[in-house]
């Protein structure tokens, strides 16, 4: 990959589509499977992760020349853990109910490998502006991914979207969808769909070249 082609916009967009952290890199599966049982949970988890991603990428990039290689992972983890703690307090201040329903998964953002992965693979090697763009793109890609699981699971598993009844009172919810098993089914279906799209685009490109 040529570095000079990486304009800010490309960096931002690649996280959403070409290198989507969930659907392409298949990273951060724990929150993707665990908290996508409702739309609200998905949105909050997506935003919290994006916040941590952007802030930690910013500081990792800012300090990248000062942090010795030998202690870089420990330093990144410290920076990430700090912003996760900050995010947890903020969520608690905004809504206790949301904090309650996400439970331990907010603290577990610390071990989301998307964040450490971006710090190590990108933010520690690029200037602040690119690092923040990359984090924003990856965060948006992650948010879209958890949201696409959350929408399907809440709609089928509870007949609602963000708590608003969609399917009507006669709808019999598929309880499996909001249980862990449903998360695997929906993730599998989305992966299948995105890979099919990608394959089709590749085939069309080949046809044009021929």
């Amino acid at each position: 990959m040529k570095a000079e082609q990486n304009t800010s916009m490309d960096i931002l967009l690649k996280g959403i589509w070409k290198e989507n952290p969930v659907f392409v890199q298949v990273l951060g599966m724990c929150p993707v499977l665990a908290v996508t049982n409702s739309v609200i949970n998905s949105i909050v988890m997506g935003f919290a992760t994006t916040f941590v991603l952007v802030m930690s990428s910013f500081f990792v990039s800012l300090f990248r020349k000062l942090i010795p290689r030998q202690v870089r992972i420990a330093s990144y983890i410290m920076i990430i853990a700090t912003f996760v703690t900050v995010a947890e307090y903020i969520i608690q201040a905004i809504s206790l109910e949301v904090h309650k329903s996400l439970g331990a998964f907010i603290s577990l953002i610390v071990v989301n490998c998307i964040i450490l992965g971006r710090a190590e693979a990108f933010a520690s090697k690029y200037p602040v502006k690119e690092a923040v763009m990359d984090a924003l793109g990856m965060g948006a890609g992650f948010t879209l991914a958890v949201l696409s699981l959350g929408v399907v699971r809440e709609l089928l598993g509870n007949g609602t979207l963000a708590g608003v009844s969609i399917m009507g009172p006669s709808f019999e919810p598929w309880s499996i969808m909001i249980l862990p098993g449903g998360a695997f089914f929906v993730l599998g279906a989305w992966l299948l769909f995105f890979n099919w799209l990608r394959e089709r685009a590749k085939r069309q490109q080949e046809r044009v070249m021929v």
Partner: protein
Amino acid sequence: MHMHGTGHHHPSAGEGGDEVSSWRMILTMGTIGLLAGLLIVVTYQLTLPIIEQNKAQYLQRAIFDVLPGASRKRAFIVEKDGRLRPEQGKEKHGYKVYAGYDREGRLVGIAIEAKGQGFQDVIQLIYGYDPEREVIVGMKVLESKETPGLGSKIETDPEFIANFKALEVKLKPDMSDLEHPLEMVKKGQKTAAWQIEAITGATISSRAITHILLKSSREILPLIRKNLDMLKQEAP
């Protein structure tokens, strides 16, 4: 862990090629730690008053939810020796019960907090007790981590919540125990006023609620009955 997943890996200084003194590593980690600590303390201080206010509001709403007809409340502290005394100002510690009064100042009931083991983690709840009729008049789960969609129905299922509109918790004359201990039955099989109908598919969580209520009512209701005269006065 998957680190170089995206092909942006630039050739950088070889592993271990550049020697760095130990004290520089310690200094770096120490500085980051110090800054991190500062940031966390500042956030904690800024959000603490809002979080405490949220918690107080949440509890306040729950108290009036489980005591239908109440419009005012007064907190009492349960002392370790089993006596009750009115709360003075805002006390942070001690086990509290809340007496609710209607507009005329009559005692409507007492809201009692209780907790116990659920399916996955501790369930915290609050329930309202009407000493006049000796029934539980409301129950609300304050905190639980039950399975979403199944156990979590203890918070949302209207039929389950309807169990706690007039649940008999009559004490024996000597107050040693309940006349009829609370028990759980399958859905649709309720025959007596002290039975709780379980949620289909969430038997463990339903049983947990039954146990928490039974244990708490055995412990607290005798205390409440002994101190009823004090609880009936809204103003000190």
